[in-house]
């Protein structure tokens, strides 16, 4: 049980490390966002699962926190990404710009 929890904790720490590295090393803003949020979401999951294995009494709280992070982290990062897009501070090498192709105004976002 303890060994399993340690394995999960180490995996979570690795994800955090990779996320931090990604924020430092990725070339532009959108890449950095996805490195900083995708990796840390998985890192939080893994760390919390490790905590649940180490302390089975806390499993309800751990589930609540995991659901909270699973909802809030992607939504937060998407809102930040949309705010960056709206600020016109977009890196010039965008290959696909669906928001522009659809002809949507920045302030009139329905999706």
């Amino acid at each position, binding site marked *: 049980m303890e060994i399993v929890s340690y394995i999960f904790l180490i995996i979570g720490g690795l994800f955090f490390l990779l996320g931090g590295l990604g924020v430092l090393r990725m070339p532009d803003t959108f890449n950095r966002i996805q490195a900083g949020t995708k990796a840390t979401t998985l890192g939080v999951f893994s760390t919390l699962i490790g905590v649940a294995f180490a302390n089975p009494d806390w499993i309800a709280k751990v589930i609540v926190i995991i659901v909270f992070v699973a*909802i809030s982290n992607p939504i937060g990062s998407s809102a930040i990404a949309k705010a960056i897009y709206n600020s016109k501070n977009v890196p010039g090498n965008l290959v696909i710009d669906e928001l522009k192709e659809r002809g949507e105004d920045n302030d009139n*976002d329905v*999706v």
Partner: protein
Amino acid sequence: MKNILGLFVALLLGVFIILALDTSASFPEFGDIDLTERVSDEYLDGNNIDDVGSANIVTAIVVGYRGFDTLGEVTVLFISALGVALVFGGVPNKQNRLDLKFKPNFMLKTGSKIIFGFILVTSLYIIFHGHLSPGGGFPGGAMIASAILLLYLSDDKFRSNVKGFKLLEGIAGSLFVIIGLLGLVFATYFLQNFLPAGTVGEILSAGIIPIIYVLIGLKVGSEISGIVDNFLTEGESV
């Protein structure tokens, strides 16, 4: 003339501050105090926990021993909320909330509504376990208000029910005083714990402490939510 007066006041204040901070005469040296003579020793004495019934010693002091002081703190918060409402609030029917500079998309709105429930449940958990674990009425109430603020920021059509908050705040505040008066009736002094202490560590223990902390949590939450509402509807009234 004004500058000279200002300089004089600043010098006077400086002298007073230096005198006030120079506590070497009025305070004993570090380690010189006999703690057994102090009232804090009685508060922190492990044998008293069974009398109070609160596993969280901070709650035992804040709500149990110093309940009247906490009533004063709640009053201070109430007065500040009143001041904000006096300055920023207006005619409730004519108010519109401030516009957001962006239009929140569907994902943001729905997601924050789901998260709102989670934050609310967590804050209620913190409030109800105030006598068992760290937290209690004040942080739990602030969490309720932060959930309301999240809805305000993520949904451009959202308006909170200000009248409901005012009602809840008034009821919680009155019940706090009424429980204090009940202590006067069933026991000897104001806010005395007249219910049985129960077993330390159970959710139904510590007498009136959890009841009062729940009331404080509701009051603080509705007050800060009212402040948030007043700030975000500012400028549109009258």
